[in-house]
C-alpha cells in the first residue's frame, strides 16, 4: 500500500465522520497538529489554575471558597485528561512539561493577565470559561477519538464554572456602588482579552484551514467569536454592566451584534511573552515541578521497594 492510498483512505474515513483512534494510520501533519493543539489546551488548564489560586485564601465566604476550590480542582483534572489524550499520539508527558517550562509550548494568553480584585474571579468564570465552553463544545465532535472523549468530560464538568462566575458578578453588581464599580472594572479589563481567546481572524489564522479540513475544528475563529458576543451581550445587560466597546451595536438584518476592532498588536505581544504575567506563570509551573521532584522520587523508590519485597517473598515461598 502506498502513502497516497492511506491518505485517501484517511480522508474517506473523515468524510464518513468516523473517529480516528490512536493505532489507526494518520498523516504526520494530522498527528503533529493534534499534539500541538491538545498540549496547548492541557497547558492552558494547568496554567489557568494560577490566576484563580491567588484568591482561594481571600474568597469572601466559605461558599465562594468551596466553589472556587472545586473549579480549580476541575481544571487540574481537565489538564490531566488532556495530557493523556496527547500521550495517545506517542508523545511523553515529561516532554510536554519540558516544552511548557522552556517556553517552546504555548498556552492560552488570557492567563498572562493579572487578577487584581475578587470581581476577577467572577469575570474569569463568566467570560473566560464562557469563551472556553464555546471553543470546547464543538471539540466534542473532533475527528480524533481520545480528544473528543476528553472534551465530553470537560464540557460536562465546566458548565458550573461559568455559572459560579456569573453569580459572583451578579452579587457584586447588586451590591454597594463600590462593589458595582469593582465588577465593571473587572469587565473592562477582561472583555478584550476574552475576545482574543478565539485566536486570530480567519484571514490570519495559519493553522485553521488544515484543522477544519481534517475535522479537528468545526467552526472558524470568527464564527465562534461572533457567537460569544451574541451570547454575552444580553448577559451583561442582566448584570447591569457595560461592555467596553463603543462600537458594539445590533444589526437588525444579520441578527448579530457587531463589535469594534480587536487590538491584535496587544494579542501578539502577549503571545510572544510580553504580557504582564508570562514570566510569573511559567516560573510558578517550573518551581512546582522542581520542588515536587523529591515527592516523585520517593514514590518511585517506594514502588520499587514494594516490588522487590514481593519478588523476594515469592522466592522464599
Amino acid at each position, binding site marked *: 500500500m502506498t502513502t497516497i492510498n492511506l491518505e485517501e483512505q484517511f480522508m474517506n474515513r473523515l468524510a464518513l465522520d468516523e473517529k480516528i483512534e490512536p493505532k489507526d494510520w494518520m498523516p504526520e501533519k494530522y498527528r503533529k497538529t493534534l499534539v500541538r493543539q491538545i498540549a496547548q489546551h492541557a497547558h492552558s488548564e494547568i496554567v489557568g489554575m494560577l490566576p484563580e489560586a491567588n484568591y482561594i485564601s481571600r474568597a469572601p465566604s466559605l461558599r465562594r471558597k468551596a466553589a472556587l476550590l472545586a473549579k480549580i480542582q*476541575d481544571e487540574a*483534572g481537565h489538564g490531566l*485528561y488532556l495530557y493523556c489524550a496527547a500521550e495517545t499520539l506517542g508523545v511523553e508527558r515529561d516532554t510536554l512539561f519540558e516544552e511548557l517550562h522552556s517556553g517552546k509550548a504555548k498556552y492560552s494568553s488570557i492567563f498572562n493577565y493579572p487578577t487584581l480584585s475578587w470581581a476577577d474571579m467572577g469575570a474569569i468564570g463568566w467570560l473566560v470559561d464562557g469563551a472556553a465552553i464555546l471553543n470546547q463544545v464543538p471539540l466534542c465532535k473532533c475527528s480524533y477519538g481520545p480528544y473528543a472523549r476528553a472534551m465530553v468530560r470537560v464540557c460536562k464538568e465546566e458548565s458550573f464554572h461559568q455559572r459560579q462566575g456569573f453569580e459572583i458578578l451578579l452579587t457584586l453588581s447588586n451590591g454597594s456602588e463600590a462593589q458595582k464599580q469593582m465588577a465593571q472594572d473587572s469587565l473592562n479589563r477582561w472583555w478584550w482579552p476574552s475576545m482574543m481567546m478565539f485566536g486570530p481572524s480567519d484571514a490570519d489564522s495559519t493553522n485553521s484551514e488544515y484543522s477544519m479540513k481534517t475535522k479537528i475544528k468545526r467552526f472558524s475563529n470568527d464564527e465562534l467569536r461572533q457567537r460569544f458576543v451574541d451570547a454575552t451581550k444580553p448577559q451583561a445587560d442582566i448584570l447591569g454592566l457595560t461592555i467596553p466597546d463603543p462600537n458594539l451595536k445590533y444589526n437588525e438584518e444579520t441578527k448579530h451584534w457587531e463589535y469594534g476592532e480587536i487590538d491584535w498588536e496587544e494579542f501578539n505581544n502577549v503571545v510572544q511573552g510580553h504580557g504582564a504575567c508570562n514570566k510569573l506563570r511559567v516560573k510558578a509551573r517550573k518551581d512546582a515541578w522542581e520542588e515536587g521532584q523529591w515527592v*516523585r*522520587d520517593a*514514590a*518511585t523508590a517506594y*514502588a520499587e521497594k514494594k516490588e522487590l519485597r514481593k519478588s523476594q517473598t515469592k522466592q522464599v515461598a
Partner: protein
Amino acid sequence: MSNSKSWPLWEVFIRSKHGLSHKHVGSLHASDADMAIENARDVYTRRQEGISIWVVESKSITASDPKLNDAMFEPAEDKVYRHPTFYELPDELKHM
C-alpha cells in the same frame, strides 16, 4: 534517581452505582497500583461517578489490530438473522 523515567501509565475503569460493568474512563500516571487507585478517585470520580474502580497498567492490555478490522468484524455484517427484527411475525402478535 532524579532522572528516572516518568511513572507508568494506568488505564482506569469505573463502575457506576447502577450495577453496570466497569467502563473505561481514561488513563493516568502513578508510581504503583495503590497510587493509581487514589489518583483515579480524584481525577475520575469527583461527582459520584462510581462505586468501584479498576486500574490496569496500560502495557498489560492487548488490543486488536485496526489494520485487521475487516477480517475481525466483517463476518458479523451479513448475519442479520442474529437479530430479532429479522423474523417476520403476524401483526396480531402484539408482544414477543
